[in-house]
């Protein structure tokens, strides 16, 4: 019979990742954000090969090229497409290198804070009792201080430098991961699979990190992307206030601060373009993060 031919082909089994990718692609804005994030990441990683100038090498700068408007050409034939700052630093190169600092500080501090915070949050939820109380009160204490204030105090004490900024951001940010990880883990640990794992007498660390952690990941990923954007903003703020990176190695925040002094004298490009670069990067990361939250949220299952 030909009946067999009428049976529709079984729908192809969608892998979880394919489903995730399909749902993510639903939002054109989020895809655009992702494209921008990837582009910025490539720029930042390939900075030494892309940037027309090494803006951190004082020997390559000449103050006689200072404050040139966009499109000017230097004495030795280099075109400054986005103009120069007061030291004769090519703004385009400065921005590309600045993105490098911003992204590495942002991603680096978010990952480190994420690892520390999530681990503490999981331990708090799993262990309960006094350990939970101790960790969570510490989290409450940390979150009750404005992060900028804590970061300022840490940097005033430690001094400037990229490593110190990262450390300050980790200290400021870990508590958010801890809180999120704990709340996710509290829900998950009452599920049957955890009970099953415990009945098998698996070691506690194994239950914690092999069974509990993977199932708590979605909210942590969402927090992570948002925290990257937050860390970048915070780094820019600290540099703007003169407490972040050294003056000869400006990040986006310091470039904006340098140009800010020229705002009243019509030399807009010194702070305008780094500002745009910072804005676009953060908006793109937030678009991706927001949409990730929707996609990974089981309650919003469409």
């Amino acid at each position: 019979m030909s009946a067999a031919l009428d049976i529709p082909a079984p729908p192809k089994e969608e892998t979880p990742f394919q489903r995730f990718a399909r749902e993510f692609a639903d939002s054109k804005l989020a895809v655009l954000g992702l494209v921008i994030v990837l582009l910025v990441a490539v720029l930042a990683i390939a900075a030494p090969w892309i940037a027309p100038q090494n803006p951190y090498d004082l020997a390559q700068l000449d103050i006689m090229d200072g404050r040139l408007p966009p499109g000017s050409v230097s004495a030795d034939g280099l075109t400054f497409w986005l103009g120069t700052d007061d030291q004769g630093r090519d703004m385009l190169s400065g921005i590309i290198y600045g993105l490098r600092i911003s992204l590495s500080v942002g991603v680096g501090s978010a990952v480190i804070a994420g690892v520390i915070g999530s681990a503490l949050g999981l331990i708090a939820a799993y262990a309960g009792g006094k350990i939970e109380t101790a960790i969570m009160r510490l989290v409450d204490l940390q979150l009750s201080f404005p992060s900028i204030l804590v970061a300022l105090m840490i940097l005033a004490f430690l001094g400037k430098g990229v490593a110190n900024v990262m450390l300050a951001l980790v200290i400021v940010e870990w508590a958010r991961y801890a809180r999120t990880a704990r709340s996710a883990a509290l829900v998950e640990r009452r599920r049957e699979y955890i009970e099953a794992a415990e009945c098998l007498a698996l070691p506690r660390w194994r239950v914690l990190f092999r069974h509990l952690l993977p199932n708590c990941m979605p909210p942590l990923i969402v927090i992570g992307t948002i925290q990257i954007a937050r860390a970048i903003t915070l780094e820019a703020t600290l540099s703007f206030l003169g407490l972040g990176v050294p003056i000869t190695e400006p990040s986006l925040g310091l470039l904006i601060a340098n140009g800010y002094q020229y705002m009243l004298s019509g030399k807009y490009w010194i702070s305008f373009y780094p500002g745009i670069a910072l804005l676009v990067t953060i908006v793109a990361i937030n678009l991706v993060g927001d949409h990730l939250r929707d996609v990974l949220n089981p309650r919003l299952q469409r």
Partner: protein
Amino acid sequence: MVVRYQAAMRGAVVAGCLVGAAAMNGAAAQTLTMASSAPITSVDPHYHTFTPNASLDAHLFDSLLDMDAQSRPVAALAESWKLVDERTWELKLRQGVKFHNGAAFTAEDVAYTLDRVPRVPNSPGSFAIYTKPIVGVEIVDPHTIRLRTAGIYPLVPIDLTQVAIIPHGLGKDPATEDFNSGKNAIGTGPFRFVSYKPGDRVEMDRFDGYWGKKPYWQHVSFRIIPNDGARTAALLSGDIGFIEAVPTTDAARLRTDKRVHLAETVSLRIIFLTLDQSRDGPTPFITGPNGEKLDRNPLKDHRVREALSIAINRPAIVERVMEGAAIPAGQFLPPGSYSYAPDLPPPAYDAARAKKLLAEAGFPNGFRITLHGPNDRYVNDAKIIQSIGQMWTRIGVQTSVEGITWSNYIARANKQEFSAYLLGWGSSSGEASNPLRSLVATFDAAKGRGAVNRGRYSNPQLDALIDKAVTTADDAAREKVLQQATKLAMDDVAFIPLHNQKNIWGMRSDLTYIARADEQSRAQDVRPVQ
């Protein structure tokens, strides 16, 4: 009904605004709102030798002598002064001068002031340096006083320009806090104290019993706005009529703005680099060209110091970084000052010779150095050190640059923690003995010499010349010795002079100001355009 009510309200509001505006115009015509660029540390005129304080004090108090706009001493509370013998000065005091509390000014107030100055507690910068040379005070009559010095000391009149006279009626050891509260803030100046809000403002009213030229303003609001952008913006918006320290970044634009008018002059402030001379062995921030430790301090070698000096393109810094608001310097004082050495131009930029000098000194491949500087004290400080970093790197001295906030920076500089660092010095006396004694004379706390010689440069020959200068009574002969000493210090590169800043004031276009070399902002010198 509602409509009529609203109309009535509108009428009332408009009327109210009109009345308000009229009242404001009346007061505004006689009120000057001015902005200082740094917070004053006290209203007590003997508390802290600090330019913002001196600015405020010039409104409330008078000294025996005053400095004119070019920092030459002129008569104030003393009408005349002369040497009666080598070590005794006689001053004739002005008659009919009244303090704000109505008391008459006499020689007793001078003696009282000179006695109080060295005993102000917790002073972060004592005025005793100005009164220390005076060892004896003799009141001849109520309007004649004689001051005796231990040795020959020709600078008494200049030093006295810095000492504000307070009335002896304040009693024994008046407290600094009582000046801040206004209780003791009594002088003979053109304005009287009304109120002081630390970090924000001082309000003053015209003192109608003032002996000198009557100020135009009935009321002066002395505001403190440290943020450069905010100060300029306040001037442009009309909130403030007169601002000091116009940022160089804005000066070019303001010059073309019809709403405002700028007054500028070259200041007595020299911006310079200090080089560590305190160590013969390795200095903390210099290493070999590949980061290896050195066994000696290259900065002790005269050729290295000279190379670092001529590697700096001063005109480029003045033009590009300072945007014209400075003049390149080769010595302490700007041209035209007493004791300026005319045969000492700013060192010419010569990178090739700098490289040659380094090679001769044993550093053909240069070395690595960190140049330190403040980032919130002098005009464009952090930008200047970055530019110098560029220039030094080009002659093979690989330079890192670090800008630090002032309070932290100066504490470390005072402990000789740096190798090369940027500083500034305003020669309040307007002549070279002040910077010679303070900046390059051998450090000696007991004798009060080399007080801010942070690099610890020391040259006995120079010390001898400085001693000779300050004990030479004849002005012309003293000038010669001072020029000689200046030349010696500069030829030996005791420090690296960069530039003299220009002081720039901005004001509404209907006002004028006589720009002062000493950076002071004085409301009595702000007048409407005639």
